[in-house]
């Protein structure tokens, strides 16, 4: 009995752990897409944030690492703004190119900073912060209230982003830009600025997501360590129907699908682990097929 309780608790905790960086990146991408920007450079921004956070944490401390990560994400987002918004180049291809650049640059810098093997990288990390009382609730306590700070931060940022998007004048202007940039311009909204701002905010979130991966989870940097999480975050935005609450559910769903493998492993079932590697992506595709159609993307998404 306690065993299966422990198993479920572990499953929930793992789901939240996997979901946290995805949720952070997807929240930022929600802001960007609401302004009409689809940013495939998200993967690269996460990766840049991951490396920058490792460098910051190695030289000063974990919170400096977090700041470095966010700055790195924003810097790369700035390049995206110049190319895709300033010069109106195609968003999808610019984003893909930026991700390639991030893979190359992080590989280069990482090897230089931490040596060819990369071993012995001993970072000051962000430990779990147990919230007194709440963390002792059975099952959900450890999953939600015994996590590193970025998890709480991601949950805290959700209602803020929701409020800005749906309850503030700024959010209205931003969403108008995403629905019809031409009309928003007629109404006096500086659409270029809106899109640039939303993209840079998205970059900061992506950098934070990368920092979370390194400082709160893995504890080290590795070449291409984001392994497609940025792309998954973009799918999560669609799955969550461009709404912070939906995005949170979708991220958790993806986290749970990934965490299932831990359950099966501890149950000792002989299922090839690769099936579990595929499962989250397969489920996401299925869910996308079900979710799209009933809700509309911002009408001007991806337009230049």
């Amino acid at each position, binding site marked *: 009995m306690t065993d299966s309780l422990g198993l479920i608790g572990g499953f929930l905790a793992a789901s939240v752990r996997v979901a946290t960086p995805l949720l952070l990146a997807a929240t930022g991408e929600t802001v960007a897409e609401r302004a009409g920007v*689809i940013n*495939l450079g998200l993967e690269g921004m996460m990766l840049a944030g991951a490396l920058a956070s490792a460098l910051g944490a190695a030289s000063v401390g974990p919170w400096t690492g977090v700041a470095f990560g966010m700055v790195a994400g924003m810097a790369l987002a700035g390049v995206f703004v110049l*190319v895709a918004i300033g*010069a*109106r*180049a*195609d968003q*999808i*291809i*610019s984003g*893909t*190119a*930026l*991700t*390639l*650049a991030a*893979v*190359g*640059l992080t*590989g*280069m*810098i*990482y*090897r*230089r900073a931490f040596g*060819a093997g990369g071993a012995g990288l001993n970072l000051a990390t962000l430990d779990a912060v147990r919230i007194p009382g709440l963390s002792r609730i059975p099952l959900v306590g450890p999953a939600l209230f015994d996590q590193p700070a970025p998890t709480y931060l991601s949950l805290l940022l959700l209602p803020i982003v929701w409020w800005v998007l749906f309850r503030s004048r700024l959010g209205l202007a931003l969403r108008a830009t995403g629905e019809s940039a031409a009309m928003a311009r007629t109404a006096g909204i500086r659409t270029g600025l809106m899109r640039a701002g939303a993209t840079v905010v998205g970059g900061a979130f992506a950098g934070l997501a990368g920092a979370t991966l390194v400082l709160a989870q893995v504890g080290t940097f590795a*070449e*291409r360590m984001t*392994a*497609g999480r940025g*792309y*998954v975050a*973009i*799918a999560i935005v*669609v799955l969550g129907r461009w709404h912070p609450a939906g995005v949170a559910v979708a991220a958790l769903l993806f986290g749970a699908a990934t965490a299932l493998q831990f359950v099966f492993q501890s149950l000792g079932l002989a299922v*090839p682990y*690769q*099936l579990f*590697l*595929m499962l989250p*992506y*397969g489920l*996401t*595709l299925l869910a*996308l*097929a*079900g979710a*799209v*159609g009933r809700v509309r993307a911002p009408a001007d998404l*991806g*337009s*230049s």
Partner: protein
Amino acid sequence: MRARSSAAALALGLLALALSLHLAGYDALAALGALWEGAFGSWYALTSTTLVRAVPLIIIGLGIALAFRSGAFNIGAEGQFYAGAIAATWVGLHVAGRPAPVAIGAVWVAAALAGMAWVAVPVLLKFRFGVLEVISTLLLNFVAEALVSLMVQGPLQERQHIYPQSDPIAEAARLSVLPGSRLHAGFALALGAAVVVWYLFARTYWGFKLRAVGAGAQAAEISGRIDARRITAVALLGSGALAGLAGGVEVSGVSYALFQNLSPGYGFTAIAVALLARLHPLGVIATGILFGALEAGAGAMQRDAGVPAVAVYVVESVVILVVLLADAAQRRAPAAAKAAAIRLPA
């Protein structure tokens, strides 16, 4: 004009690589020297690494050009390549004793069909459920990589069950090579495919319709003679078939077996290949060889100068960005120049 900006893009890309290597603290000159040596330094380097690497890049690049021309984004060529490689390996293991043309033909057809099947899912999702093909093709890359891992540790694992790779395919299914080199017959296939795709684009009614859809699906649809969805679907399926074929050619001409990381990111590099060629099939031959040289040089750079091979991605990304910027600038230029500009499908 276009050739000039393509050359400028390449020059800027190499400059960016040198600069970032220097800033990161590497010996940039030594690295670029190693890159050049590894790509063009000898007849062997040219034929056995540069051109060998160019083969999948040209074939996949043609597929990317096909999809992009129709206005659809196939970012999943990497996955389609792996689907093709799996099918090719499976067939290649079962054709011992057949005449070589039959064996090789079977391997290639299986690979192309597998690549097509892999992209059929995003095509279905796009037209049946409205899922962006950018996202679905991307996600399927990860599924394909996991599938390769499953295959080489499961059904296709070598007989002794020690290594995560397949047995070598039958002799009959292996391509002949240019004596004294590793350059295989797949290079001829790549050249032939480029000519076929060029003919399709430039000389057929279907190619005309494809260009019309790429220039504006709605306008094409309104003309009443063009089923834009159908054209896009066929272009995507063809794009997947080419990427799958590239996987089959890689197995039958280079690796003779399936293993993980068979592709060093060919599916993504091919996007740069297609864009630098401005989606022109014959141009893809040149840009494919160019990026083949970069990939070949990257290996040498890692070996001889201690620079991680992924560094060449900097070149690729700068090339893509510069081409995009040049085209965007041209789009905003006055009407006369505008007519000459190639428009990337929006």
